[in-house]
């Protein structure tokens, strides 16, 4: 197995470990910013209540003209993410174990899920590798959602080139494009909320790339063990 | 048109044949649609192609191009054998009762009439094509019972008995059933209260037997009692906005304005001429209006030569051009279109004026026309656009004949002319309505109206004659050029002159002491014209169009008290503002309308009321004056004595190029015996073994001749030359839609895009499978869009009808291949 790029020695502050390389951060933000643009402009087309967004983004025609190009940028970043994170994003058995405790995770009750308390009926809280299942779900949601948005978006982009006999393609697209958006947008809201408000340190990790060892140990123990080569404190 | 556009709305049955009115006369066609909407009229379309008119028809029959006479003959036979003729009408108003001269015969085997000279291959003696004249009275003999075997009706029955549905099918390629279905509808108008009309156009006139074809249609309409009836008649749809006006005013070489036959060079004196144009009556009591032609001839000469036309010089009889005698004794030269180009090709012409004409494209056989123009010393073209004719010397056109510009001696002058909207004047439409039009915009640049171009040329020529003298300057010097502005004659003044006025005080003919017209007064009616030189009139037919009441062609009243679309105060309708010609026939012997809901005219005990009567207004019906006042026999001619070159009856002859031997006389005459091909190297006719496909040419709604190829909107509608090909033929040749195909005739070839269609079906003609294809004209070398030199007339031939001299643009042979 090739050595993942992230394991290359990079200088980090003492007590910290490198969580995201520069490229990863760049790609993340390319996807994030393009998605935010797409969401905002898309919402303007979704409902007249949000039409102000189109005005904010340069007016209806400009927004309409730019949206598909940004869509392409989003697609490119998603594809790049796929390339660099595919191995990390595979859903494992441990993830499925972890999933059993998802309720506790949502309720911030993982403290109570210490193995010591396992006999009290709690499911053991399975350890997490580089990404937890929620993050993986988001990734795959964005991947498949992005793909759907891309395909349907293309149909809508070039709908004037489509012969009348293929009208069903347009109809499928006008329906699937917003459906796919809504689903990704749900993931997006949760992701942003989790990454900023709930999991403190997450936001700075995609900015600076570093997390504290304790953060890493706490949230992603398997990963932490892996990158520190077992030097982690037990 | 015997009737008028608006009158078509009164029809019960409309036969569109030899024309595609929806395509080429869409505006007038509205009245056919009104008839359908308002009267449940049936529209029958008989045509080589399922076309735009067929799309809205009740019955469509596909026939082979050039087989129309067989179809009409079949209809005549159907009407006669099924007793579907309006007998009272036929007896009263046609020459069905007349006896035909002993000696007249028709040989069914050879397909030739009496008088044929086998050796000379010509009709050398037409004296038997005549009525049996009673030597005592000099009137024609009649048999009121119509039972005499030599009476016209009996001869007719025998003649057309050969045109059975099976024969029609064999010649035309339609099924006998389809023919009979159409015949049932068409002949249903034999009832006095049912009226049918026929709309035809160039599909009938573009044949080597075109006049006889129209003769056949006229016979059919007469048998069915449809002529003279509102909603009936025989209606020629004229192709250009003022082509009727052109014909009325002497456009054809053999007529003076007003359809007065041109004097011949061997008429020594005016009376010789008048004796020809003023016939003697053939029946007692007839009006024989043509006896008045002396008035019109003299008034016309007065219009031409003014003060120079005096009693002493026979009103200028010898100033006016006459038709030169021909090579053979008793014949005269022919200067009709195709003949003119033949003469041009043989070097008999020095110069040629082409105004509003594009002979290279619109004449038959373009390559011959190009070759002929190259023999001229000079050519003057007055046009809106650069045309194929004006630029016939250019390499791309000369390429057609392997010629080079440097070898063309012709000096060409292209004069920019104003178009119809850039000048005022009048249009005479198919319905004979003369309507004034007003200038919409000024002509661009140096473009001038035609009359100014002509005037300037004339004045210059006259000046040259004055300075240099000449062989016979008198006609030019004597011409009555009275216009206020000699270089720019106002068309208002020309219109005044065409109608005519009294030169001196004109006395009443019944009461010679009262002045009927003061000097200078406009003529009001035909008989205001005088043969003594006291009146002038450019065209007698137009008398009444510009009277003391003013220019009546400018009238625009939509009032229609008749409810029959007569619109008597809209413009002026020659003759005498009469909307339906021969309208005496709309009423029975006692003067009561055949159909009270469609009364043309009726006798009220004192006079005829309704439309302007085509009759003496106060002649009681009992007096029995014939309704066809222009004919010396007073009735309509089924049998046509003497007048035509190719027989007194209409017989089906094959087109000059035909895919089969004439099924009517397989051993005898194939094509029109009186039609003669020209003899130059260009005049090749093809045989069906090499050229098996019947082709026809036509026009499209989207274009006007070769003009609109300069206008983007027209080009948008029909951008490229195409060839309509039956799907079966295309499959046989492996031709796909829009692929390029080449059509070749014995004269030339042309490439166009294939339009593979189900609208033309293969036919079985005389037991042989025959395909026909069609192609529109409208393309050429110069214009907007894809021109590609696609002049349809590159493949047509220049054999003409022996009566009208119209070329056979329709129904010729070609071969087809992928290009």
């Amino acid at each position: 197995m090739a050595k993942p790029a992230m394991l290359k020695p990079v200088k980090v502050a003492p007590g910290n470990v490198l969580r995201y390389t520069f490229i990863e951060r760049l790609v993340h933000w390319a996807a994030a910013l393009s998605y935010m643009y797409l969401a905002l402009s898309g919402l303007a087309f979704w409902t007249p209540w949000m039409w102000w967004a189109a005005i904010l983004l340069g007016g209806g025609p400009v927004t309409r003209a730019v949206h598909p190009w940004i869509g392409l940028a989003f697609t490119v970043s998603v594809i790049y993410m796929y390339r660099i994170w595919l191995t990390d994003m595979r859903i494992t058995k441990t993830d499925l174990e972890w999933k059993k405790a998802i309720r506790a995770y949502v309720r911030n009750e993982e403290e109570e899920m210490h193995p010591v308390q396992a006999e009290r009926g709690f499911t053991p809280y399975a350890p997490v590798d580089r990404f937890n299942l929620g993050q993986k779900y988001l990734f795959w949601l964005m991947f498949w959602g992005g793909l759907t948005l891309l395909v349907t978006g293309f149909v809508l982009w070039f709908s004037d080139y489509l012969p009348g006999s293929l009208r069903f393609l347009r109809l499928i697209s006008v329906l699937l494009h917003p459906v796919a958006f809504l689903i990704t947008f749900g993931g997006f809201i949760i992701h942003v909320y989790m990454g900023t408000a709930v999991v403190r340190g997450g936001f700075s990790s995609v900015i600076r790339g570093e997390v504290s060892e304790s953060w890493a140990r706490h949230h992603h123990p398997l990963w932490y063990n892996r990158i520190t080569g077992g030097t982690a404190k037990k | 048109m015997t009737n008028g556009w608006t009158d078509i709305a009164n029809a019960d049955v409309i036969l569109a044949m030899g024309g595609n009115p929806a395509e080429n006369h869409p505006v007038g066609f509205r009245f056919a649609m009104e008839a359908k909407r308002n009267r449940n009229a049936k529209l029958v379309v008989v045509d080589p192609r399922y076309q735009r008119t067929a799309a809205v028809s009740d019955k469509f029959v596909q026939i082979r191009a050039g087989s129309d006479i067989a179809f009409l003959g079949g209809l005549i036979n159907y009407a006669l054998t099924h007793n579907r003729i309006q007998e009272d009408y036929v007896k009263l108003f046609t020459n069905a009762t007349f006896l035909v001269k002993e000696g007249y015969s028709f040989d069914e085997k050879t397909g030739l009439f009496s008088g044929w000279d086998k050796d000379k291959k010509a009709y050398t003696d037409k004296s038997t094509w005549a009525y049996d004249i009673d030597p005592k009275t000099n009137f024609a003999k009649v048999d009121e019972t119509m039972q005499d075997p030599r009476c016209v009706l009996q001869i007719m029955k025998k003649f057309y008995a050969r045109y059975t549905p099976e024969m029609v099918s064999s010649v035309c390629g339609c099924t006998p059933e389809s023919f009979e279905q159409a015949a049932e509808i068409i002949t249903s108008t034999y009832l006095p209260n049912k009226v049918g009309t026929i709309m035809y156009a160039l599909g009938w006139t573009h044949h080597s037997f075109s006049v006889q074809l129209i003769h056949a249609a006229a016979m059919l309409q007469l048998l069915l009692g449809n002529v003279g009836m509102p909603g009936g008649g025989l209606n020629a749809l004229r192709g250009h906005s003022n082509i009727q006006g052109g014909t009325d005013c002497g456009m054809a070489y053999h007529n003076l304005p007003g359809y007065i036959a041109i004097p011949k060079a061997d008429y020594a004196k005016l009376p010789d001429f008048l004796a020809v144009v003023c016939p003697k009556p053939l029946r007692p009591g007839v009006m024989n209006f043509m006896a008045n032609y002396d008035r019109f001839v003299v008034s016309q000469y007065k219009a031409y030569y003014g003060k120079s036309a005096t009693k002493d010089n026979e009103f200028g009889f010898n100033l006016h051009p006459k038709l030169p005698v021909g090579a053979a004794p008793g014949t005269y030269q022919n200067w009709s279109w195709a003949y003119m180009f033949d003469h041009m090709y043989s070097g008999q012409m020095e110069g040629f004026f082409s105004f509003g004409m594009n002979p290279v494209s619109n004449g038959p056989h373009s390559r011959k026309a190009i070759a002929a123009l190259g023999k001229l010393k000079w050519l003057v073209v007055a046009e809106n656009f650069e045309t194929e004719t004006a630029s016939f010397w250019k390499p791309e056109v000369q390429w057609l004949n392997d010629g080079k510009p440097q070898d063309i001696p012709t000096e060409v002058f292209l004069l920019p002319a104003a178009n119809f909207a850039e000048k005022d004047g009048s249009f005479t439409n198919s319905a004979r309505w003369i309507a004034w039009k007003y200038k919409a915009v000024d002509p661009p640049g140096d473009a001038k109206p035609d009359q100014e171009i002509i005037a300037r040329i004339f004045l210059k020529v006259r000046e040259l004659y004055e300075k240099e003298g000449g062989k016979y300057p008198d006609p030019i010097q004597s011409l009555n050029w009275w216009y206020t502005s000699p270089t720019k004659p106002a068309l208002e003044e020309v219109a005044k002159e065409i109608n005519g006025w009294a030169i001196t005080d004109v006395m009443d003919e019944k009461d010679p002491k009262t002045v009927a017209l003061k000097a200078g007064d406009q003529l009001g009616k035909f008989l205001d014209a005088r043969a003594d030189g006291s009146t002038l009139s450019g065209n007698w037919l137009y008398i009444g169009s510009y009277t003391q009441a003013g220019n009546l062609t400018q009238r625009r009243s939509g009032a229609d008290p008749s409810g029959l679309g007569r619109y008597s105060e809209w413009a002026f309708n020659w003759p005498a503002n009469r909307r339906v010609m021969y309208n005496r026939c709309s009423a029975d012997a006692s003067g009561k309308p055949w159909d009270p809901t469609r009364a043309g005219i009726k006798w009220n005990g004192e006079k005829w009321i309704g439309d302007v009567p085509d009759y003496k207004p106060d002649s009681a019906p009992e007096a029995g004056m014939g309704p066809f006042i222009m004919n010396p026999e007073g009735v309509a001619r089924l049998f046509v004595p003497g007048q035509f070159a190719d027989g007194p009856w209409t017989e089906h002859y094959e087109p000059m190029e035909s895919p089969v031997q004439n099924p009517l006389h397989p051993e005898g005459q194939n094509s029109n015996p009186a039609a003669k091909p020209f003899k130059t190297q260009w005049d090749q006719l093809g045989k069906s073994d090499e050229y098996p496909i019947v082709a026809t040419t036509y026009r499209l709604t989207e274009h006007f001749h070769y003009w609109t190829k300069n206008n983007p909107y027209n080009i948008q509608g029909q951008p490229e030359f195409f060839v309509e090909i039956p799907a079966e033929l295309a499959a046989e040749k492996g031709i796909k839609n829009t692929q390029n195909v080449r059509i070749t005739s014995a004269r030339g070839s042309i490439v166009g895009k294939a339009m593979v269609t189900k609208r033309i079906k293969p036919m079985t003609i005389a037991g042989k499978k025959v395909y026909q294809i069609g192609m529109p004209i409208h393309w050429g070398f110069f214009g907007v869009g894809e021109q590609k030199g696609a002049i349809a007339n590159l493949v047509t031939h220049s054999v003409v009808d022996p009566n009208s001299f119209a070329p056979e643009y329709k129904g010729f042979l070609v071969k087809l291949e992928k290009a």
Partner: protein
Amino acid sequence: MPGKVLEIRAMSASSTPAPGIRSAPVVAKLIDTSTCIGCKACEVACQEWNDLPAEITVQIGTYQTLPDTTPNLWNLIKFNEHETSDGAFHWLLRKDQCMHCADPGCMKACPAPGAIVQYNNGIVDFEQDNCIGCGYCIAGCPFNVPKMSKQTKKVYKCTLCVDRVSVGLEPACIKACPTNCLTFGSKDVLLLKAQNRVTQLKAAGFADAAIYDPPGVSGTGVVTILAYGDPAAYGLPRNPNISFALELWKGPLKWIGNLAIVGGIIGTFVHYLRFGPKHVPEDGPSKQLPPN
């Protein structure tokens, strides 16, 4: 309605009612295919009135000007060569153009406020100034009418000559039609006329003659008399309607989506209020033991 500027009855992407308060008689154009000769006068009259340039065309193996309408050619005569099962052949000519649906799919699909409006006389018009060129109307239209200009990236179609109609004139095509196969007026009157014509056609042997005023779009402002009945033979959809996808999209999905978005945002907020952030123990030994 001469002298009175037309009012807007409905408009695209508007959350509030359109301003038109007065009602007006619904106008319509009646096309009688049984008297249409395909002369294309309407095509050119439309272009000339609307100042549209001629299209560069090629011969496509039919009499039809173009395969379909374009941003510069808003009405097109369709020439359908039609053979029935019993072998009868008809050349069916029909004027193709915006149908001015009472319930316009284009307007429903349009996301740009005011880009598509419906006047109180029923005319559906595109306001190119407000059009963003998204092409949703193309998806929304059951007749494939709106056409996007490559040049301007806006859609165009027949306006039913709203500029002429609003000053009491008939549309340009009606004026140009030589056979009167096109008529214009109040829809009620025209429908009566159409019914009479259909009765007449049936009596004349056109057994299947029918009026095309499809209920799926609540009727159209362009009513067509089909002499041979079957809309498909004329290139018309048999049962055009606002597509189910469109109904779903602009109906339930829209509300579910809106609720989901708002609900999601509120949900996260409430979640934060209730559970707050996760805490990372500082430097303590991990309570989680990797199983290794």
